[in-house]
């Protein structure tokens, strides 16, 4: 799948984040980017799986190209979501970018052992945060090749 400039395909990102402040910050950071990204947001682990599996109120959900996953989530935490996604025959192909404030070794190690595609610490500074979001875009949408489905 190609998201280069001029392509008609708009990359889709699923943000799994319970903090409204972080959701808004991510939206602001995406505004500053060059690529137009469609952002879907769910605010707990169960909703994330419902969205990805098109269950319950998410029957019309569209499969994202990448997932931005916070670890500290209500109901089902990020690791549990990661575990289920990576155990799913089709969903496991979607790159999962863990985006969290936890720099604990056991979280990092656990995330990778459940096949997180990368692990990024949320910067405290907004400019740094915007930079991280831009790097994610550049890398995952302009650099790598993603699977079609």
């Amino acid at each position, binding site marked *: 799948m190609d998201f280069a400039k001029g392509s008609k395909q708009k990359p889709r990102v699923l943000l799994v984040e319970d903090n409204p402040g972080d959701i808004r910050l991510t939206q602001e950071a995406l505004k500053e980017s060059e690529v137009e990204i469609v952002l879907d947001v769910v605010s707990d682990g169960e909703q994330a799986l419902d969205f990805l599996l098109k269950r319950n109120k998410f029957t019309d959900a569209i499969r994202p190209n990448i997932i931005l996953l916070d670890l500290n989530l209500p109901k089902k935490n990020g690791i549990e979501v990661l575990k289920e996604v990576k155990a799913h025959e089709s969903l496991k192909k979607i790159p999962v970018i863990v985006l969290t404030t936890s720099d604990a070794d056991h979280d990092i190690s656990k995330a990778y052992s459940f096949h997180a595609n990368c692990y990024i610490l949320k910067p405290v500074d*907004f*400019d740094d945060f915007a930079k991280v979001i831009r790097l994610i875009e550049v890398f995952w949408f302009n650099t790598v090749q993603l699977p079609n489905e």
Partner: protein
Amino acid sequence: MLKAELVPNKDFFDSYKEAILIASATPEVIYVNAAFTQLTGLMLDAGDEKALMEILKACETATVNSNESHCHLSIGEKNAQVKPVNVSSSPLILSDLTKVTLFTFTRPGNNPASINDERKFYELADASPAMIFLEDKNGQAFFFNKAWLEFIGDSGDNRSDSKWETYIHPEDIKVTEEHRAEDVDRVPYSYELRLQKFDGSYRNIFVIRTPVTAEDGTFNGYMASCLDITEIEESQNKINELTRELKLANEELEQFTYVTSHDLQEPLRMITGYIQLIQKNIERGNLSAIQEFMDFVLSGTSRMQMLIADLLKLSRVNRKGAPFTSVDLSEVLNVALAHLAKKIKNTGAEINCEQLPVVTGDTFQLVNLFENILDNALKFTPLDTSPHIAISVTEADGKYIFEVKDNGIGIDNKFHKRIFAIFQRLHNRGEYEGTGIGLAVCKKIVERHGGDIWVQSEPGNGSAFYFSIKK
């Protein structure tokens, strides 16, 4: 007439390398060993009484002034050869308590091995804190040391006819027999069993069994050394328990620090991020979103305040706990209800309560406990429903068990444990406000009062919170 069978440790004397003669006070020779017969050609009950008597007299004369001396001994009547030997005497008590004399002969030049060594062994054995006994090659115990006699409460000096098996705990007889079967291997081994002490108590005993060999290397029985390890095991168990508690406390602390720093960082990050965003937007002259961003900053600061206040509450449970007094829980409940009066009025809640008992505890914390649980019951109610809360109490196992039942939204089974951990929220902040610390505080309070806290609930069917407090 005294019988040779009364000689203690006869097995040992029989196979002893040096010549031995035992005489009664009469005087009369009552025992000679094989080495004696080999040396002198004389045997008991074989018509040699006269010759034996002569040797005995010589021995008595030789040792009259000191118990070790030198005498000439005629060896065998046939060749009438005379050889010098050293003779030493020592008192011996037969198992019928008759006093007799033990004479030991050593050839000059021979290493005067070791009837003395043997006696030293008995002295050492008596000085040992371990219980020691010796068995002959047939498995018959013939010597018990002082520590053993003290253990079984034998005030006399009855060293030989104690059936030590009678002290084994009935449940350990089988395992002992299984181990004793290893005796045939003639190698040292050890095992544990319980033995009954004179006061009737059973002690945990560690037994080391070592085969004993005669001078010529042949198997001569077993020596058993028994250590009372009851206290060692008890203190080891205590240490293990404390270590486990310490480990748990450390893990809890680590978890606490991690969760706390994570949860405190989040509002701080919001504040920083949005202030920078505001600054950026002001620079660009874009003021439309300023108010919205400002709200995020403010909610960040108030959230931070709330977290810090809750953390203080949690740390106070252990740090600032008041000494326990007699507490009337009916009064405790009234105070808690007064604190929640506004919420009760606003939600139109109906609260019913049974007569509550008086317990021993910390009044302030118990108010806090009831307040937190009732606050949850008031908070987690479906929209357009008035909370109905019923408080009741039962007794079991020396504890009061309290039930706080509501008609709220209920909690899925899989969260029943997690809700009592610090900062665990099941709901988005938008749905139900809170830091996720209330139930963690409750858990700490209940644990300090020697009880437990748990929940029974399913989504849509209300929740019943239970906690126990020692009577």
